[in-house]
């Protein structure tokens, strides 16, 4: 009789131990679901963090950039200055605002340019983008001068969807820093304006064979 009671007691102890351990186990599980999802955290963040911009290591926009003639959702931004990267700028040095009258001038000065912009059988003409009157400028479809540093204004006339994404941040890229003054690469930093499609090439590296 006594023995029976004893083992009964033991069973109770075991049962309560079991349930205790199970509870702890559930504790380990709950942790996962109790967490706020990242989408909720994003939704909750509606105002621009004030001190986010002030990371001491982030410089002001690099000297060779220029303020864009438009703004993005966060206000003003900067773009990379292009003019000094154009080898033969100023164009007026040769052109004097008209056609250069030298034999084979096109081959000598611009032989490297292959026009692959536009449909295959209907490429764009030089004058579509370059200002006929003032060679130091580009021209819009409406005939307005566009500075080489603001080439995005020109490209955006046709590629307005890409321009929209570029302003917002889904197309193109920032220079070096995610924080600080927003400075973007110009369209022509990545796209050759005369052949804007990316060329086929070999990848820079490769992934090792993970099996022999």
């Amino acid at each position, binding site marked *: 009789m006594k023995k029976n009671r004893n083992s009964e007691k033991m069973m109770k102890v075991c049962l309560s131990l079991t349930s205790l351990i199970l509870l702890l186990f559930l504790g380990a599980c709950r942790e996962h679901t109790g967490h706020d999802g990242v989408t909720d955290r994003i939704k909750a963040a509606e105002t621009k963090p004030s001190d*986010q911009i002030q990371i001491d290591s982030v410089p002001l926009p690099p000297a060779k950039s220029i303020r864009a003639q438009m703004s993005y959702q966060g206000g003003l931004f900067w773009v990379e200055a292009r003019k000094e990267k154009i080898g033969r700028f100023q164009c007026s040095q040769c052109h004097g605002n008209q056609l250069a009258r030298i034999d084979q001038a096109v081959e000598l000065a611009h032989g490297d340019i292959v026009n692959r912009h536009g449909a295959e059988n209907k490429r764009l003409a030089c004058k579509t983008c370059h200002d006929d009157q003032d060679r130091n400028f580009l021209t819009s479809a409406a005939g307005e001068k566009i500075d080489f540093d603001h080439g995005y204004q020109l490209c955006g006339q046709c590629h307005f969807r890409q321009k929209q994404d570029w302003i917002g941040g889904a*197309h193109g890229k920032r220079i070096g820093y995610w924080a600080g003054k927003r400075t973007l690469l110009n369209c022509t930093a990545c796209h050759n304006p005369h052949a804007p499609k990316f060329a086929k090439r070999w990848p820079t590296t490769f992934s090792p064979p993970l099996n022999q």
Partner: protein
Amino acid sequence: MMSCRKSCNPEKQTESKRSTESACSRRSFLKTAVAGTGLLAGGCGSGMSGTAEKMHLNWQEYFKGNYRLMTPTEKEATVSRLERLAKIKYKLDVQISTREPVQQVLFGYAFNISRCEGYMDCVAACVKENNLDRKSQTQYVRIFELEHGRMDIASGNGKYFHEVPVADHFYMGVQCFHCESAPCIKACPTKATWREPDGIVVVDYDWCIGCRYCMAACPYWGRRFNWHDPDVPLGELTRKQHYLGNRLRRRGVMEKCTFCIQRTREGRLPACADACPTGSRVFGNLLDPDSEIRYVLKHKKVFRMKEELGTDPKFWYFSD
């Protein structure tokens, strides 16, 4: 003294070929050679005293605690020990930062699958920036070539090496997705891996015991293990390092993408995003409603890999 300098000279000539791995083995070779010819007295700049100092530093390093529990003084002490050890072992000056997360910052990443052309500049930049082992060709970032009509990464080819882009194919990059509910963190028995306040999932390389349970728990194959002593050419070593980032790992510990913590905490872009020639990689602060990443999330249709697993990754895919 002079003869010793001379005998050290061949080392200089092969400077470009020196690596973290060979530095150790050559050192021990030199030591025996020097001892054998009885030139011990002069020492080789960092002779016996260097060895003793190294042992002392390693001893102190062995008993240090988990990074998260260190006081600022302890952090400073371990960093100076690690920098000194790098100096003794590789004769290199490295700077190991312990920069804290920036307030009100939660890092997020978006990858444009209609822009990526598969050039793999990101992979090469990552290997260089993060001092990844060259011998086993460790890579944090991988690019898969997928056929149009499928979105399943397992059907992709992660080992392509041909001219890219290939017609009727698209490219998808994978790396650690820095999940908010990361299974790897939950798995680790020693709390050697955790999510920082800015959302980066990091590993304390000196606290990890190398059980590899996190590796089994990761549904994205985001983690890499050091099966042997990592081999990094010293000439290519990135010396600007972070304790939780690209500092040199040891054998037998886990490592992974840290969103280039050594760069991003300073406001810079991660190496992969910086290197991308097509602008397919968008990185920024998820808590800043004006950021590029937030623009993508708002204006593009995005998806996350294996979202059904509830891991809540901070890495989205989108298309134009």
